[in-house]
């Protein structure tokens, strides 16, 4: 699974420049696309672009979620959580071991994004000044927090439901339900919906290309990761951990 995830991610990240080149050739207007490419992979915007793509809700982030769900629900279906407790873990140790695994997965995924960003940036960016390279790197941290919280959400679902297949179904159904809730509920509440709150850390990037196209259109694009977004997200992370702990503590294994 992890190998699959890495391959897919690598394929996407390294495939995109090639794809753009390909489209450029076919379209007969290569210069226009060259500009686009230079803009997308420009330091510092690349950090926002790349983390945005990698953390999109329905996209490859889900693969990491699936890994977490398989790992945790297997503990219940193989009953290995039982033997872990019998052999001398307590329930908190067990939960922390799984959270540790999530941290490792998140670090791993963040590292890949970071290295890909560096590589693509240095390969395609027009500006390579230190300040530009490090410019929006805070988005990498934002990406870390977003993925970490999302994986804790998957862990909680897995602990709650225990069955691998049903957990997947519930996760995907929730993917559909939340946008509906988002649409129906009052705007003052919707930013606090968990998946939306996570995704809000890294919003649709304002690549310079879009800016050019929407010159007269004065819309606030995100320039930096907001502390409030991170706060809400970390609040959710804490809540997911707490709920997971309470469920594990109360349950007969």
């Amino acid at each position: 699974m992890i190998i699959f995830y890495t391959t897919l991610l690598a394929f996407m990240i390294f495939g995109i420049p090639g794809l753009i080149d390909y489209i450029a050739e076919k379209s007969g207007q290569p210069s226009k696309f060259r500009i686009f490419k230079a803009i997308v992979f420009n330091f510092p915007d690349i950090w926002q672009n790349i983390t945005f793509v990698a953390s999109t809700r329905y996209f490859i982030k889900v693969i990491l979620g699936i890994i977490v769900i398989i790992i945790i629900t297997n503990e219940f279906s193989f009953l290995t959580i039982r033997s872990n407790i019998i052999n001398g873990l307590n329930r908190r140790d067990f939960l922390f071991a799984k959270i540790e695994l999530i941290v490792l997965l998140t670090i791993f995924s963040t590292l890949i994004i970071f290295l890909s960003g560096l590589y693509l940036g240095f390969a395609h960016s027009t500006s390579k000044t230190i300040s530009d390279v490090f410019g929006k790197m805070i988005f990498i941290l934002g990406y870390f927090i977003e993925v970490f919280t999302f994986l804790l959400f998957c862990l909680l679902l897995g602990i709650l439901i225990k069955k691998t297949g049903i957990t997947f179904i519930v996760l995907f159904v929730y993917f559909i339900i939340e946008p509906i809730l988002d649409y129906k509920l009052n705007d003052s509440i919707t930013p606090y919906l968990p998946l939306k709150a996570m995704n809000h850390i890294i919003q649709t990037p304002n690549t310079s290309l879009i800016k050019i196209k929407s010159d007269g259109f004065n819309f606030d694009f995100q320039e930096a990761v907001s502390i409030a977004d991170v706060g809400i997200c970390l609040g959710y992370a804490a809540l997911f951990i707490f709920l997971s702990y309470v469920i594990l503590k109360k349950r007969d294994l």
Partner: protein
Amino acid sequence: METVLSIKNLNKKYGKIHAVKNLSFNVEKGNVFGILGPNGSGKTTTLSIILDVINAKSGSYSWFGQYPSKESRKKIGAILEHPIFYPYLTAVKNLEIIADIKGIKYNDIERVLHTVELHDRRNSKFKTFSYGMKQRLAIAAALIGKPEVLIFDEPTNGLDPKGIAEIRELIINIAAKGITIILASHLLDEVQKTCSHVTVLKKGEKLFAGKVNDVLNISDTIEISSNNIDMLKLAVKEYDKVTDIKKELDLLVVNLKEGTTTFDLNNFLVNKGIILSHLTVRKKSLEQQFLGLLTENE
């Protein structure tokens, strides 16, 4: 005597089923303690509670005289119901995970694999094992780090006669080293052959408890008496077919080895010049109760 496990007024309910009812007992150091009862009598539930796998409704238990903790569980090796391992990992890898949890060095793994004769298959994945091999690996896992207490829940379930004999022998060998063993079984014969003490459960309740020899004695118990009871006792002690002698008022209660009859005993005493004034075979009441209990539930 040192109390290893003390259970007080334990209760567990699953909806309407009262799986464990006000159960109390103590296990002393060095006991081979049998929990005997038909299927569904609450043996696994009781063991699961004292291993913190399930939460009791009420009641308490203590390990080694202390409030139970993960540290106390590290001193216990246990098998609950079926062998549990990560199926896609090898035998060695599975044992390494357990050694890590218990804080034990990996070199003990070689030893336990040899003990259960799985050393040749140590690098095979768990899911490729036969049931007997899985059960042996579970025993190996329980033996890691030389625990002070071993818990076996139906250890011979699902094994062929050879496997059953091997596992019983293993348990007897472990017990001979003075390690405390708690063994749950629905087989009277298994408890008799391996245990020193027993608690009999029925529908979650304790029916009776005591030393196996007292509770489940299958050899004949004979009452004898003569005009000089002390001389009688001295004479009976010399008879090598006697396993147990107890004095009750003006009676001697004697147990004989299997295959020895009251006729043999009487013959021996007559040769010693002792005439018995009383000789009867006692009803094996407890054993019959237990057998009745088993058939009633089948």
